[in-house]
């Protein structure tokens, strides 16, 4: 008896004394429950506050399988509403783990059915809670930029990844005493720490323009049978990206369904529409039946405008000529003999079209995208200086956006130079850029020679509704205003009389440049007939409002055909969206030779854009006096240039106006367009 009493007392001593804390904690664990709440993820908004991505709480069903009395019966009840096979549910409900998810973020209709089952007491041990789910209310619009979010609410790619700390918010916590039925014990422990909602990220994108850009690019990809494409619209003054469309054409061997949600075709077929008669103009046209049957582009798996490099081709000539003008290697009125072929370090290069020796100004060289003329200019400049300017224009360094995985581009260093580098880099081969870098370069000229860094994120709005703007990077000058104006006039000539006629937006004045680059082969060399076709420019040239870049990769068409019409569409839509009227054309700069027309150039203008200017009729006036022949003066030396004289009419296919050395070169162009009444 005494021994028993001693044993009991000893046990009591250990239970109540030595192990008291452990047992007390075990007891608390039975009735004290701690529940964590995810902070609602902030939205991603466009520049006007329209949500592009947002989180909405939906019902998640879970179970405490210790409390489940009949796993089979409950699995039968839940299988239908949750859409989960009964054996799977039965297995989950029998795990004996204390907590098991049965279904995440189910639709409201299913949640209502589960709630009614819970209310009827048929599902002991089954509970529901609210969990946020990420939605893209505008579909997959700008998905490569926005990125995706994992099931745990973490950003996995794109802006969701880069700004995850801002967006994710802070989780909340509830600690309370609960009875076995899951109800709170009144008067017990109750500590509630509310979750803090994440901040809303405000982008510079404009949702309608983004939609326009994706639709227009999708059409272009199908028409040009391109593998992928990029279309960028930038506010020239601020560097804000208004649209960034990045699409790919999926193929069976290269599926692009790695993203969540799965990639869907960019196009849609409106109900009741006649697919054979697509409307013209802005965005959102119904595709033709032929287009519907073809492989439709989908959103690219990554933001290719930032992450993918390509050899830019002739759009790079802007950098070459700007560098030559800025460094004084050439003057805008200087004339060059442009032969049909040209020997550089033992390699014979030629233009894209055969021609006799021409006598051209830099403006004509640029307008007709002469590789030989550009190489001659680059030789006067020198490769080291050229590469200095290439870097000064932002090529070879990541943009201000610093997008996750962004490429800096590839600019060869001195160790990688070869004898033919002076023949390839000036024309955009042997150097690799991202589309945003090239857009920045053109925007530099649009801003009078000042580089205004590209911006994609404007700021954020915190949980209290306060707006916080991200600091705007300081612009810096790359070339002088005079050089920028001269380049602008030369780029105008590209559209007026050169290869970029399809980008004409009369009565707006467009300044831009076509580009057609060969695609490198993995086996070395380049793939014949496989191009990266692009067009970059800004409008109105007199006071640029938007800078646009269009790239179609993996096509057999030139930039003039594949990309210039898309440029015109996007520029027109952007100008309408921004309410920018046409401007009064500025008179030509004195001392700057205007581009002269030439028939039969390689980068022939594409078909006229329906609804923009009809069939363009370009009237070109050629001066009779040799104002810019050898020995002539220009504005830098105080000379005067004749700008008006007799008129000759020409256009694509017209007799070439190739002039011998000393012939007239100072030309002025005026553009009129013929509508139905003309």
């Amino acid at each position, binding site marked *: 008896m005494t021994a028993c009493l001693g044993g009991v007392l000893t046990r009591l001593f250990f239970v109540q004394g030595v192990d008291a804390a452990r047992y007390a904690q075990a007891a608390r664990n039975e009735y004290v429950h701690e529940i964590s709440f995810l902070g*609602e993820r902030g939205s991603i908004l466009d520049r006007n506050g*329209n*949500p592009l991505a*947002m989180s*909405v*709480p*939906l019902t998640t069903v879970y179970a405490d399988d210790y409390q489940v009395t009949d796993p089979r019966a409950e699995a039968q009840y839940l299988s239908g509403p949750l859409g989960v096979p009964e054996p799977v549910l039965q297995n989950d409900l029998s795990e004996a783990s204390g907590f098991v998810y049965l279904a995440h973020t189910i639709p409201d209709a299913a949640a209502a059915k589960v709630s009614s089952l819970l209310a009827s007491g048929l599902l002991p041990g089954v509970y529901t809670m*609210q969990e946020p789910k990420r*939605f893209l*209310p*505008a*579909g997959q*619009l700008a998905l490569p930029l926005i990125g995706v979010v994992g099931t745990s609410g973490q950003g996995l790619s794109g802006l969701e990844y880069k700004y995850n700390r801002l967006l994710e918010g802070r989780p909340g916590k509830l600690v309370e005493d609960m009875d076995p039925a899951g109800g*709170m014990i*009144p*008067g017990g422990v109750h500590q509630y720490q509310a979750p803090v909602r994440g901040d809303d990220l405000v982008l510079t994108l404009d*949702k*309608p323009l983004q*939609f326009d850009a994706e639709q227009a690019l999708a059409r272009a990809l199908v028409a040009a049978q391109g593998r992928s494409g990029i279309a960028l619209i930038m506010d020239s003054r601020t560097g804000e990206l208004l649209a960034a469309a990045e699409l790919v054409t999926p193929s069976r061997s290269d599926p692009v369904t790695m993203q969540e949600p799965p990639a869907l075709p960019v196009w*849609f077929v*409106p*109900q*009741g*529409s006649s697919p054979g008669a697509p*409307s*013209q*103009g*802005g*965005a*959102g*046209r*119904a595709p033709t039946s032929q287009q519907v049957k073809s492989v439709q582009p989908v959103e690219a798996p990554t933001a290719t405008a930032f992450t993918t490099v390509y050899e830019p081709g002739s759009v790079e000539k802007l950098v070459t000529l700007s560098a030559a003008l800025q460094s004084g290697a050439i003057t805008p009125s200087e004339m060059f003999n442009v032969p049909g072929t040209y020997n550089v370090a033992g390699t014979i290069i030629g233009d894209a079209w055969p021609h006799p020796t021409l006598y051209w100004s830099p403006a004509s060289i640029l307008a007709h995208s002469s590789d030989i003329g550009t190489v001659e200019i680059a030789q006067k400049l020198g490769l080291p200086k050229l590469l200095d300017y290439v870097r000064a224009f932002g090529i070879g360094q990541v943009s201000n956006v610093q997008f996750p995985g962004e490429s800096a581009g590839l600019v060869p260093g001195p160790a990688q130079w070869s004898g033919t580098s002076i023949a390839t880099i000036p024309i955009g081969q042997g150097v690799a850029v991202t589309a945003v870098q090239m857009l920045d370069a053109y925007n530099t000229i649009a801003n009078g020679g000042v580089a205004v860094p590209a911006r994609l994120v404007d700021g954020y709005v915190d949980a209290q509704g306060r707006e916080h703007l991200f600091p705007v990077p300081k612009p810096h000058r790359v070339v002088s205003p005079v050089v920028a104006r001269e380049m602008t006039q030369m780029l105008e000539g590209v559209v007026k009389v050169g290869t970029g006629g399809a980008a004409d937006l*009369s*009565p707006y004045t467009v300044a831009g440049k076509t580009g057609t680059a060969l695609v490198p082969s993995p086996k070395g060399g380049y793939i014949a007939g496989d191009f990266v076709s692009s067009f970059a420019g800004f409008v*109105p040239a*007199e*006071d640029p*409002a938007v800078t646009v870049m269009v790239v179609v990769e993996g096509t057999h068409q030139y930039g003039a055909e594949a990309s210039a019409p898309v440029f015109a569409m996007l520029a*027109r839509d952007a100008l*309408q969206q*921004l*309410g*920018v*009227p*046409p*401007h*009064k*054309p500025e008179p030509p700069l004195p001392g700057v030779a205007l581009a002269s027309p030439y028939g039969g150039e390689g980068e022939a203008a594409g078909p006229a854009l*329906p*609804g*923009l*200017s*009809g069939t363009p009729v370009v009237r070109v006036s050629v001066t009779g006096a040799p104002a810019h022949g050898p020995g002539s003066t220009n504005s830098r030396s105080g000379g005067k240039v004749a700008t008006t004289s007799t008129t000759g009419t020409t256009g694509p296919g017209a007799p070439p106006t190739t002039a011998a050395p000393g012939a007239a070169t100072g030309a002025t162009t005026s*553009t*009129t*367009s013929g*509508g*139905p*009444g*003309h």
Partner: protein
Amino acid sequence: MPAEPRRGPEGALRQPAGAGSPAPANGARPEPSPRAEPHLHLVVPSRRPHFNRRYMALWAGLSVVAGLALALVVLHVLIAQAQFRLDRLQQQAGQDQAQYEKLRLSVAQLESPARIVSIAEGVLGMQQPGSVTYLPAPQGAGSGASAGLSSNGPSFGSPLTAHGPTVTAPPGAADWPSVKPYLSGNP
């Protein structure tokens, strides 16, 4: 023999007059005053009042304890009721917040450009215009007030008209006569 205390009408023992007054300093017996004659009487001591007070105190204490217990029970009931109400309100607030977020999502989905264009072109039969018509601002009109154009840059006025902007009549446009006078002869 000292005077025997007399009983009052109520039987109360009255104290003789001067009994409470101090004795004269010379020890002489004070003369009884006929006016201060006490009404003395015997009072039979009763034990019931003492018993009643304790009994009452006990009952009062018990009542207080019972009242306190009842108040505590009521307080707990009120707390429990308030807790249930708080739970319901929190649940309702959560549901309303979720509903608000879902309505926001619905609005955003309804404003989707793809949906708007799909309905406009597919259901309503609307088409993108085949051409864009630019109206030159009337002479003297401010750039920002002309035909809804913004104030960016100079107005689209006579200088551009001289070059002949692209102006085409929308096919079947009913308002063409009212538009034409602004086109300065083009076409």
